């Protein structure tokens, strides 16, 4: 429990109002909340860092962050993936400034302490004269307490007592098996990630990808007008919201029947659909959902999201094609987020598919993308209002009441959904967004 009395009261207020569909604005801008998140969320959560294909060979590394701290994700000479805090053990100077690369060793610029890519301290200038008595074994790089992967997605956790990644993922594992496990040979990243800075709190994009489909009806109208949507927007809302436990959630736009004329298998082209159909690891229920899926979009708590859907690089001249993009919403202070975004392509997919899928992703979901360019601006607006004294005094709460009761919206609990979790349809409801903050509160108050 927080020791700052104001913070304790604030969290109490979140607790008292969340189930009424009200979220106090302080959650998005208060510096004390943010500091507490760095401690209670990011020192404990499983955080996504990298895709396996970014570091395929021994010595490959990428530089990433957990909370605001810099970490090196490296594959050592024995091919083991390790996550090191990016600081020399001597005086704490960062030992890596590159975004990515290949190295057998990392050397500190200050005094030249040198570490192998398995973290071991191997030497320093004038070792015999300076450090003859130092035990190298005790002064290796600091490592994340737990590191694990699922479908090539590497996560790390800084809490040695935290549950395993599988346990943390809960019901979301079944959906990751569906969406990322669809291709038996897995995925590879295409290109280096896009990175850009949004003046918003990190939780806002996380909850947006975690089942805010309602914004499609208005915010993305320009895309409807230039011919981007294969399915009318209102019809598209006839999908499902899945609360997948532990704050994770995802949303499906889905065909009602396997012979619906709209897109199937997330719009992947035929040769990739054949790979999914031949995949013995998908259960019949997963095969059925894959078949009927037009869009799958979700967030793994706290700050990792994915989106698979069919869009075109240029609707006038080319057909929509299914693609997969994944994101990190990197906290960079209470009111700033550094977005990281990758495009994944199935291993074994053709060069032609990769080019088109990447162009489609870039044209739609990227900083210059026709959807995402519009998404980010209201996120900054939500955050700006959270700093307003007048708002805090008079309005204070953001409305999360859609689907709070059966009187409120058309959304209903679904009883015949083939997968795990708590499921609502149609997508006019915010149960999962409340669920994200329920989990957030649980960790913040623990």
């Amino acid at each position, binding site marked *: 429990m927080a020791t700052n009395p104001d913070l304790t009261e604030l969290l109490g207020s979140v607790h008292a109002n969340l189930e009424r569909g009200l979220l106090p604005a302080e959650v998005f801008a208060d510096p004390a909340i943010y500091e507490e998140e760095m401690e209670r969320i990011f020192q404990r959560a499983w955080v996504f860092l990298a895709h396996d294909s970014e570091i395929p060979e021994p010595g490959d590394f990428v530089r990433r962050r957990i909370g605001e701290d810099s970490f090196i994700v490296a594959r050592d000479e024995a091919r083991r993936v390790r996550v090191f805090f990016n600081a020399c053990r001597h005086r704490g100077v960062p030992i890596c400034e590159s975004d990515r*690369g290949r190295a057998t060793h990392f050397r500190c610029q200050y005094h030249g302490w040198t570490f192998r890519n398995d973290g071991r301290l191997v030497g320093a200038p004038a070792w015999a004269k300076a450090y003859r008595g130092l035990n190298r074994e005790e002064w290796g790089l600091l490592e994340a307490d737990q590191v694990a992967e699922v479908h090539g997605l590497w996560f790390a956790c800084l809490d040695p007592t935290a549950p395993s990644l599988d346990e943390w993922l809960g019901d979301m594992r079944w959906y990751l098996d569906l969406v990322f496990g669809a291709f038996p040979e897995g995925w590879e990243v295409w*290109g280096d990630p*896009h*990175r850009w800075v949004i003046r918003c709190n990190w939780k806002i994009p996380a909850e947006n990808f975690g089942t805010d489909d309602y914004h499609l009806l208005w915010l993305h109208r320009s895309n409807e007008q*230039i011919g981007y949507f294969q399915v009318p927007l209102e019809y598209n809302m006839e999908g499902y919201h899945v609360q997948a436990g532990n704050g994770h959630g995802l949303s499906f736009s889905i065909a009602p029947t396997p012979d619906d004329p709209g897109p199937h298998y997330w719009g992947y082209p035929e040769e990739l659909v054949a790979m999914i159909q031949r995949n013995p690891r998908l259960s019949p229920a997963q095969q059925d959902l894959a078949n009927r899926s037009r869009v799958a979009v979700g967030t793994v708590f706290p700050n990792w999201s994915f989106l698979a859907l069919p869009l075109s690089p240029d609707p006038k001249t080319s057909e929509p094609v299914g693609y997969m993009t994944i994101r990190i919403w990197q906290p960079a202070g209470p009111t700033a987020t550094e977005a990281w975004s990758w495009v994944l392509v199935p291993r074994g997919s053709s060069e032609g598919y990769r080019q088109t899928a990447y162009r489609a992703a*870039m044209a739609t979901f990227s900083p*210059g993308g026709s959807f995402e360019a519009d998404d980010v*601006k209201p996120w900054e607006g939500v955050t700006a209002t959270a700093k307003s004294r007048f708002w805090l005094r008079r309005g204070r709460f953001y409305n999360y009441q859609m689907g709070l009761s059966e009187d409120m919206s058309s959304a209903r609990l679904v009883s015949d959904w083939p997968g795990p979790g708590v499921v609502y349809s149609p997508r006019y409801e915010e149960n999962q967004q409340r669920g994200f903050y329920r989990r957030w509160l649980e960790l913040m108050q623990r």
Partner: protein
Amino acid sequence: MITYEQYQQLCDVLYREAELLDRREFRAWLELLDPELRYVMPVRVTPGSSDASSFSPAGRFFDETRSSLEMRVARLETGFAFAEEPPARTRRLVGNIRAERQEGAHYRVGSNLLLWVAYGDAAEALVLAAHREDEWVAEGEAWRLRRRAIYPDWTTLPLRNLTLFF
């Protein structure tokens, strides 16, 4: 080698292009683009060694054709492209223009671009810097942009979005 007159014409077309974009006369700007245009902006990274390229082999912020740029313009014209409602104010400074003639009427033109951008009533503005490598084709009196590669000087884009043309 090119003549001084040809150099002057190329400088003029780059300045005119910058002016059209600053004035948001996007349809007139599209007229400068060759139907075969390829327009790319690679992602920049801080690589692991000083001799490695700092541009991503496959990562792009833009990989456009004239048709896809037209689509971006059409989106801005819907009135619902909220990223640009109200529109950004921009000022482009083009400099260090160097040109050489390739075969026929094709010219390779390198330039530096400083793009000043401000949104709404925000007091702060940003300057984005990039190097551009173009191929322009002379068609009688007219010039058409056939190829443009934009090499940005950022690795992390300091903007919330990228709805500008470079």
